[in-house]
């Protein structure tokens, strides 16, 4: 039950959606977006692949088990929460760095970005887990 139009369409937009989700993740601190929304968009891209090609393909695209993605996310968030404590600050304290990079100019980055990346991964992992488990029997 495959559709040529859907497959071609998916191939055309899949990477664009992923890039957009990363954009949302990074832009989130100042504009609509953030780790949660970015993760949902990336999840939606995976769902699209799933609908077009099936669950095996969605799992292959990520190349990591859903549990690994989930664990990496929680680890990143928790690590960024604890890290300031070791640096002498308080748990979950945020810090701002201004970097001047060639071509891009001055970039302001906060330490909470790592936390947001963790959230992003958790959401992607959740979608992946649902697709692999609940969608798993579609192919068989």
């Amino acid at each position, binding site marked *: 039950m495959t559709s040529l139009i859907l497959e071609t369409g998916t191939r055309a937009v899949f990477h664009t959606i992923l890039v957009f989700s990363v954009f949302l993740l990074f832009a*989130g*601190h*100042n*504009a*609509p*977006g*953030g*780790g*949660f*929304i970015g993760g*949902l*968009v990336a*999840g*939606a891209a995976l*769902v699209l692949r*799933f*609908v077009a090609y099936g669950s095996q393909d969605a799992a292959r695209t990520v190349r990591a088990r*859903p*549990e690994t993605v*989930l*664990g990496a*996310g*929680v680890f990143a*968030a*928790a690590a960024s*929460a604890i890290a300031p404590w070791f640096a002498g600050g308080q*748990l*979950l304290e*945020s810090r*701002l760095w201004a970097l001047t990079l060639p071509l891009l100019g001055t970039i*302001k980055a*906060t330490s*909470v970005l790592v*936390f*947001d990346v*963790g*959230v992003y991964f*958790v*959401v992607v*992992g*959740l*979608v992946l*887990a*649902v*697709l*692999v*488990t*609940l*969608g*798993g*029997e*579609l192919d068989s």
Partner: protein
Amino acid sequence: MPAALLGLHAVVALAAPIAARRLGRRVLLLCAVAPATATVWALLHASAVVGRGEAVDVHVAWVPTAGLNGDFRLDAFALLMVLLVSGIGTLIFGYAAAYFPATKRDVGGFAAWLTIFAGAMLGLVLADNVILVFVFWELTSITSFMLIGTNHREAASRSAATQALLTTGAGGLALLGGLVVLAEAAGTYSLSGLLTAPPGGEAAAWGIALVLVGAFTKSAQVPFHAWLPAAMAAPTPVSAYLHSATMVKAGVYVIARFAPAFALLPAWRPLVVGVGVATMIVGGYRALRQHDAKLLLAYGTVSQLGFMVVMFGLGTPDATFAATTLIVAHGLFKGALFMVVGAVDVQTGTRDIRELSGLRHRMPVAFSVSCVAAASMAGLPPLLGFIAKEAAYEGVLAGELGLTGPLAVTGIVVGSALTVAYSLRFVRGVFAGPRAAAVVPRERLILVAPAALLSAASLLMGVAPLLVDALVNAAATAAHPEWETYHLSLWHGLTVALGLSAVAVAGGAALHASRARVERWQAAAPRAPSASGGYDATWRGVLAVARRTTGVVQNGSLPLYLMVILLTAVTLPGAVLVADGEWPTATYTIGSWLQIGICLLAAAAATTIAFASRRFTAVLLLGAVGYSVAALFVLHGAPDLALTQMLIETLSLVIFVLVLRHLPSRFGHRPQRIDRVVRFSTAALVGLAVFAFSLVTAGARTAAPVSQEYVARALPEGHGRNIVNVILVDFRALDTLGEIVVLVTAALGISSLVVAGRLSRHERRASAGDST
């Protein structure tokens, strides 16, 4: 330093499973480093703590406002306990390395748990904060559970482990309650502070009663003693360490700490001494019936624990002094005896005294070690056990104790006579008799050496009590500052105590001489209600009640669950709403006509769901409601919310579709008319209530909304212009952290449920295939 020692135990425990891959059972020797270090540390402090009577205090602040601190205190009594716990512990690790066959499975895990236990026990005797005491107390219960269940493939091991955990765990809860009550009454969570200025009043009396319940369960006092004999399902090193020499003394330790401060409460002495005497006699009586040498020792331990509870429970300086001597003596002789039983078990393959015979020829070292240790247990001169028992008689006779004095003396004489009898039964049963036909391999000295060390200590300290004198005196002074040094000695002259000792030994010998008659009488005696029967009945009763409750509350009907949840949500807050709610007086203006249109759309979609007959239609309509709400968010200028809502709706739709594949396409048969009425009214009620809530809560604000503060602080402190995101990842990041953990848990839950369901379907299919 105590924290570093505990850390060392933790590190060693973590490293043990990895090291075991290479070292095999020798990993246990590596683990012995942790208790050995603790022993050396205690000895290094001995001159200051024992000699000058100082105490080493260490404070590590953690949450001072909640009274949670890492407070440790090494006074002379704690030092004595550390030497017992870590000193005997070091020997046990060495013994265990020889006890287990080289092929033992998972020796690394076993070593890790044993090391954690050693650390927990060390923490318990050093802790000077009542919460910390409880934490280590529970840790010893949990490690005990894991260690009893070492042979978890056997049902008996599993149920013994569970019984120990449930009994001591329940006692642990009582202890926690009691400690908190006492700490609140005293206004301090420091153990030493609590004991120097003990609180009075009714609350404190209840608190101390709860603490005693905890101590009684841990130290296997009547009627909670059944778990200790059952725990003999553990490997012998565990029994020798946890269930005779150290862990079961945790309860005795707590009584020892609390007795000087609370012994004058009117109910204390009758209760503690009564329970202790009963335990002494029940334990001794039951020990005389055992044929398994290890069980015999276990009941002997119960009896001796009762003895220690009596002595510490009296709470007078003389009694505490005697009890402290006793705790040392018991650790030495009981540790040795258990290790000998383990050696016999390893070499002959049995512990049944009816099968063992003539071992004194094949295991001469074990035989002499047992003779010394059993003589110390029976209270014969010139051993430490004799000195301790003499001190005990003197201690009880010296105090002004009212009626509890004679009760205690009678109990100790009867208990000691029984002890003499079962000590004889043990030595005779294991070692005497003609040479058995079965070939016993040559005695492995490495298995007997640790026990020989302990027995030698019993003998040396008995002949030269000076070795232990200073330590015991300092420990008694730590509990009772008014205590004046008293020197232990073998010979006090012809005293009443000596006479009582003689009576007990003669009685015990007589009991042993007429053992055939005693056994017949025991077999014929009407069976008293046994404690293990009580435990079984409680266990079955709780399970039965739980099953019945679950059957009523969780009957499996999803609509019923929903209805209960929703009606509860409506009625409880709804009652408050009707009683106290203030209806808003402000009027609302509609922002745009689009809003009304979207609301109508959502309402229409929601209404249609109720009449949908296909599941797929219902899901699509539900999605329509969600998208309408997203549109409302846009109209109200909340792009982040709207975006999230859109994405969530999309994903939920897909997930719904995935689930729908497993369900029939149409809803089941329509509900009965009466049922429909009930459902409709519930739905209407919930809808109305939510509507009313939204109105009232919007108008009920009294404080300034916190959002204004967030708006003001988002850019300067959170460095972001998107307030929603700054709230999520900065201001309320802890909430977010909790939420993503929930997400992960949900994802793992879904995975395992689906996989489990798939497996069981496969099994059903497979079994159906078999039957056809």
